[in-house]
């Protein structure tokens, strides 16, 4: 039996893999012949074997397959997580990125025998420059947060190179994603927060007061984390640039404007892109991401290395990695090799399949889906946080009324949505809006899927009025009921140990 019956509910749980172990059992097809290691001093050798599972190959396959079946995923469920862009991950991106020659190649193998791979990387750089309006791209940051780090580090390097050492403050809107202030701190900067106005745009007057000779730069997302376009972005850029600061663009919401507006044209000096959002590389249960960065001319000398360069060679071209020697003012390296190559290949393949035409329409259908959902949900009585604004690729509902009048929270709605077969939207982000749901359908979802979600929300609202307890104790139909987070943090059980 791979599960244990729980006496109180009769429901089964999956055993932890170690509970399947039997001493001496192996997946013997995977085990090389024995060799006696020679030449290692005994005081450097391990005394006891590590605790790893001892199971058959079938037991392993069954266990992990069953675990997979406990997950919601894009492949199985509508997943409207705001700010995460849960669009379809095309299977071809995976199978072509995992062609044997691509996955077998050592990162330090001679470049002369990696021209096919390097050509893909070079073209990816170029396409990303084109869609963002930037003149240089580095593919090396391994996640959005690393892209942010690179972005802010480049801004600081720029000021240092000009001997402008007083600039150590980064301006961040109050509604910013948590990585933004964390990044600024990692770069040795102080933070200054500015508020947003009631219509969702950044408070431009507050910005005017906040800038000065201490301003290194501002970190902005556009559309913002509030799901609306910063209408005064040209003015914002002007104010910051005139004060001597630079603009960093957090590309989390690039899906909303892809092919419609380019961050370079809005006045941004540096941008990070989330390839695992906008360019459809897999979320993988929490990574790997890829946070490629794009820069304008000002910041080109500071790009993190390596970057792919192209040289003429006979009738054709030769590609090679540009390193610290080629980019002497580079902020340096962020990864052991060149970043998440396999993720980059997937993004490349996706962009080739979309092409110019497809890339220009991503934002159109993302916006269509989001605006449709917002209109119908408002029609059904839900309160949008910014009702007079267009939804970008996402929008925010606030359930503050339900919380006050019915005692059910955004968390309760989210958990009940799981019972209806939908992954919940993002909850409680941005922090600015109370009891909020941030909903981002993405362009790959069909109308019926959106209608199904809307119908579920309407049904849950009715339940909130007639039997609120059902929401408060949701979910009811999943492998587990609501989990005790407090206990998880207080009684730390982070490592399996055999029963005493």
């Amino acid at each position, binding site marked *: 039996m791979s599960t244990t019956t729980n006496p109180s509910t009769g429901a089964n749980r999956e055993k932890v893999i170690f509970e399947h172990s039997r001493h001496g059992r192996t997946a013997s097809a995977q085990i090389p012949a024995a060799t006696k290691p020679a030449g290692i*001093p005994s005081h450097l050798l391990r005394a006891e074997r590590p605790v790893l599972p001892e199971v058959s190959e079938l037991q392993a396959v069954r266990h992990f397959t069953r675990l997979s079946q406990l997950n919601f995923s894009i492949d199985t469920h509508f997943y409207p997580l705001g700010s995460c862009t849960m669009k379809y991950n095309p299977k071809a991106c995976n199978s072509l990125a995992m062609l044997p020659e691509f996955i077998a190649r050592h990162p330090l193998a001679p470049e002369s025998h990696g*021209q096919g791979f390097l050509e893909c990387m070079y073209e990816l750089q170029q396409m990303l420059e084109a869609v963002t309006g930037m003149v240089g791209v580095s593919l090396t940051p391994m996640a959005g947060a690393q892209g942010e780090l690179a972005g802010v580090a480049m801004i600081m390097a720029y000021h240092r190179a000009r001997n402008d050492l007083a600039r150590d403050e980064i301006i961040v809107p109050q509604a910013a994603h*948590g990585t933004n202030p964390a990044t600024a701190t990692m770069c040795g900067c102080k933070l200054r927060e500015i508020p947003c106005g009631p219509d969702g745009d950044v408070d431009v007057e507050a910005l005017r007061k906040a800038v000065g000779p201490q301003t290194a730069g501002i970190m902005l997302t556009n559309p913002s984390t509030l799901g609306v376009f910063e209408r005064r972005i040209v003015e914002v850029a002007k104010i910051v640039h005139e004060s001597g600061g630079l603009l960093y663009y957090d590309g989390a919401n690039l899906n909303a404007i892809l092919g419609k507006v*380019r961050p370079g044209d809005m006045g941004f000096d540096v941008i990070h892109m989330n390839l695992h959002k906008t360019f459809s590389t897999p979320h993988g*249960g929490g990574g790997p991401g890829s946070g490629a960065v794009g820069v304008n001319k000002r910041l080109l000398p500071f790009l993190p290395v390596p970057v792919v360069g192209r040289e003429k060679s006979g009738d054709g071209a030769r590609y090679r990695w540009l390193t610290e020697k080629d980019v002497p003012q580079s902020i340096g390296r962020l990864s052991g090799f060149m970043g998440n190559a396999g993720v980059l290949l997937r993004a490349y393949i996706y962009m080739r399949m979309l092409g110019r035409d497809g890339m220009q329409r991503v934002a159109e259908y993302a916006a269509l889906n989001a605006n449709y959902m917002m209109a119908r949900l408002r029609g059904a009585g839900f309160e949008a946080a910014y009702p007079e604004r267009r939804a970008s690729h996402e929008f925010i509902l606030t359930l503050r009324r339900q919380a006050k009048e019915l005692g059910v929270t955004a968390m309760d709605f989210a*958990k009940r949505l799981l019972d209806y077969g939908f992954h919940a939207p993002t909850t409680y982000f941005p922090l600015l809006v109370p009891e909020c749901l941030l909903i981002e359908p993405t362009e790959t979802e069909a109308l019926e899927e959106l209608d199904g979600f809307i119908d579920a929300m309407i049904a849950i609202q009715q339940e909130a009025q007639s039997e609120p307890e059902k929401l408060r104790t949701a*979910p009811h139909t999943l492998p587990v009921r609501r989990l*005790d987070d407090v206990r998880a943090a207080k009684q730390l059980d982070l*490592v399996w140990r055999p029963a005493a």
Partner: protein
Amino acid sequence: MPFNPHTPADERAMLDAIGVRSIDDLFDEIPASLRVKALDGVPERLSEMEVSRIMHERAARDGLALNFIGAGAYEHHIPAAVWAITTRGEFYSAYTPYQAEASQGTLQMIYEYQSMMASLTGMEVSNASLYDGASALAEACLMAVRAHRRSKSARILLPATVNPTYRRVVRSIAGMQNFTFEELPYDPDGGHTLPEALGAYDGQDVTALVIQQPNFFGALEEVDELTRWARRNGALVIALVNPTSLALLKPPGSWGDNGVDIVCGEGQPLGVPLSSGGPYFGFMATRMEHVRQMPGRIVGRTVDLDGKQGFTLTLQAREQHIRRGKATSNICTNQGLLMTAATIYLTLLGPVGLERVAAASHARTQELVAKLTQVKGVRQRFDRPYFHECVLAIDRPAGEVLEELAARGIAGGLDLSGAYPELGETLLVCATETKNGQDIERYAAELSRVVAAARAA
């Protein structure tokens, strides 16, 4: 447009529901001056068939070399089941497990992974992975400075035997916060860090000492002596280790008298293909006393409303989405997919399998070294014991030799003359369990030819 399901009828109905005439109206808040006309620089779309053709052609162009390079990324056999399961849509296209009840698969997997890594490293607790080994080392340095209350210097000793790219990454990531990194020299004969080199820092405020085992040269460090020095001197110890080697070598939890403080490293050898350098994953483990300073996600086991076992992200107060500017790090993700592959890999291999892979890799490298040093002008550079990697000195420019070997289908190793010019012409070579006697013979024969041709020229 690919992956877009909307029919004209769908569009019409949706626009009506919104109350606009066209999709273009949805962008009316964007200043007209900013609207882009056309995306030049992006080619026309291709069907899946057409893209497939291009990718196959480019892959064929690159070909498959017989690989003898290590230097931080190691070729091991990956059982077929690993990626068959890892690429299941339920793992591949799932998000971070923020809605725990809908993510018990991923969460239980992470808990199992944490358990395996804790045991492998000999430490009390592991996180759910970081981006890669280099950034994990950077995070370990940041963590050591946070965790070591009594040390004010933010001074970290980084031996020259630590992977040179990793040392650069540490400076790029941690270097913006007033840290000092001191390089420790290595013994020119042994290729290892001499414990005596630490003498220069006796009695000084050192926050942490980094020890890589095996080191970048493949040589084995005297980890107990180095750890004991750090303890006597009030410094924390960061161990940078190869996970396969931990099946054979003493884990950092047992170094010195009571182990190290932080363990980190590159997890790629555990079921992740070489794939031109990424995606990989970093691992990190520590003592319970430091757990609140450890970056990255952590999963804990708990119960649900019925008292049934379940798993959830925990200790989130350390992370960016809660602490924002005061977070331990800006890290937002782990490397979920790769960690999944590693967990399945470790399950399939088990303690016996991993030990056999480690032992076979060590034996193959010894055979490789024995065969290659029979070629004229090739000799083993260092005399310390090594694990699954070794430095060979060669009396021809290493870069040229490697190019010629590449032309013959062999990725022969890493030219060290860039990072370690003082060593002269040297190659770092590695053979794992994936290499057999014929492979090694072939390399030796080709190397002989390459060297002889040079002599003739």
